[in-house]
């Protein structure tokens, strides 16, 4: 049984008059505990692929299974609940809520998962400590450096104890040193047994991954172990 599986997934977008097919039959199985890197040139469909893996959008064709259960026909609310309870996201642009403290940001998924306030704050605080921001929990994103912001985002992605963390170029906006820190954090998470899917341009990230797949023109072209 795989944790997450795409079967013959196609994704088309309408661009004005014509329809363009971005994913052209992607097959992919992700096992629990795996650290998978997705690489490929710009525009090859990596982000689109991650969107579908993260139930942020539905495939135009094909199937996505979460723990062997097809979810492509689930209702919008059911997919939202799936994200709230079993998925964590880290994005290149951090996507923190600018008015909120690090603590409130990190706790956000728990709000939608129905966790009570005291527990939300306890868990968020614990994870901020875990990513080395125990002393910054009341700071707002604007008061934090890029690397710190991404660590808040990682704490947020971890807070609901997700089955898998999906990251889209998590070091794309960071300098080399900071990237190294974030990468170390990912490695540590992997070492704890967490499942990671990371879209990346960085060979260094790919080097730490257990497996790398390459996308080109909407198809998986290469798998490296």
């Amino acid at each position, binding site marked *: 049984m795989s944790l997450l599986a795409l079967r013959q997934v196609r994704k088309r977008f309408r661009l004005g008059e014509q329809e363009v097919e971005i994913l052209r039959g992607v097959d992919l199985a992700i096992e629990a505990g795996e650290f998978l890197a997705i690489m490929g040139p710009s525009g090859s469909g990596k*982000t689109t692929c*991650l*969107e579908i893996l*993260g139930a*942020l*959008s539905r495939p135009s064709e094909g199937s996505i299974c979460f723990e062997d259960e097809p979810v492509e026909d689930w209702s*919008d*609310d059911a997919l*939202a*609940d799936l*994200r*709230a*309870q079993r998925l964590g*996201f880290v*994005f*290149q*642009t951090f*996507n923190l*809520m*600018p*008015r*909120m403290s690090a603590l409130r940001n990190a706790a*956000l*998924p728990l*709000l*939608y*998962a*129905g966790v009570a*306030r005291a527990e939300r704050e306890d868990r968020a605080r614990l994870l901020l400590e875990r990513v080395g921001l125990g002393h910054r929990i009341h700071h707002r994103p604007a008061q934090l450096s890029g690397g710190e912001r991404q660590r808040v985002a990682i704490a*947020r992605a971890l807070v*609901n104890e997700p089955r898998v963390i999906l990251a*889209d170029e998590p070091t794309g906006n960071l300098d080399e040193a900071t990237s190294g820190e974030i990468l170390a954090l990912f490695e540590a998470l992997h070492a704890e047994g967490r499942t990671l899917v990371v879209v990346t341009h960085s060979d260094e990230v790919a080097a730490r991954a257990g497996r790398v797949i390459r996308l080109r023109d909407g198809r998986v072209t290469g798998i490296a172990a």
Partner: protein
Amino acid sequence: MNGGGARWRRALRLFPVLLEDAALEIREDWRRHLLTFVGLVWGSASVVLLLALGTGFMGFLDLGVEKTGARWTAVEGEYTTAENGGLRPGRPIRLEREDVQRIRAASPRVALAAGEILMATTAESRAKTRATIVSAAHSDLAGIRNHHVARGRYLDERDEAEARRVAVLGAALARVLFPDGRALGESVRIAGSAFRVVGILEEKGFQLMTNMDLHDNMAFVPLSAGQRVAGRGDEIDRVYLEPLRIAETEALERDVWHALGPRHRLVPGDDEALRFDRVPDMIGGIRNVFVALELLLGLVGTLTLALSGVGVANLMVALVNGRRRELAMRRACGARRSDLLLQIVAETLAIVFGGGLAGIVLAVGICFAISALPLPPAVPDPQISSGVLLTTILVLSLVGFGAALGPARIAGRVDPSAALRVS
């Protein structure tokens, strides 16, 4: 059903947290909210003030009604228009004190009845002389016109039966005639005859359907004594009648016709021969005008507030559009579409009620300031009742939900995948 309950529980759980988020947004971005806030303060203050003004007028009306008596009908003789057994039309109808008895005998619907003559004359104490209006009437008048005695007593049946020269003074008249305050038991000359003061009325202030505070400046004497002093024999100017039940006012008028018709040789249908002034009808008419006034004022205030609601809606649309990525990230974190709608509703309500409550406070302050001003008695103070507050809060809620509608729908359309797309 179950799903509906779960939805409500979810909304109730999220709402307070979303309000906190909204408070953060407003506090951090207050400059952007300032103009909208001022508009809301102004809008809600005008709703409160205009409604309070209407309520003030209404309270003023009620008070004026209380002071003048609200249940009575006055019957006066006019002129016939029909010929009757050789009597020419245009014959004046002169009512007499016996007519009061005739009506009482003929109608079981009468609660109170009083014949009255009015004299424009002078009242004279040792200290002062004052032009005044004197009402000589049966003692039921006190109940009909709501006279309340502050000191001494009102006129009674023995005063009437024995035509005693006793008088009750309005509060203002008593003050003028007896500046030292000792009026009871003193003598006052009315139309040249000495009367003993047996009572002083409570101050009435403004009365509806009299000349402002008329009763305060009048003197009241028994009908019998007044008729003698005025030399008017048995004649009376009018009969005041108060029915047991107000709904029987019309039936009572028919009884009056039956009671007085034979005596005054009235032809049925000669409606102009007797004039009926129905106070309940008049008050009803005035009340309708006041209700219309209050509605109009409320509408003006509501429109003002609705205009500031448009400002809120515009602000919220701009805020939502600027926050698409944040909203998408919330969706990625597990927010349902309806959670985003709720978020926008919460934020809009926070803005509307923030400004609205400030406006209410402002309006309350203004009302206190107005009450502190020395205004002439005919100008009512605005009155902030719980009804005014509840109406304002209701209008605020409507404006809030109305303003949230558009921006909430925009927020609901934000796709979770937008969190990954740099735009």
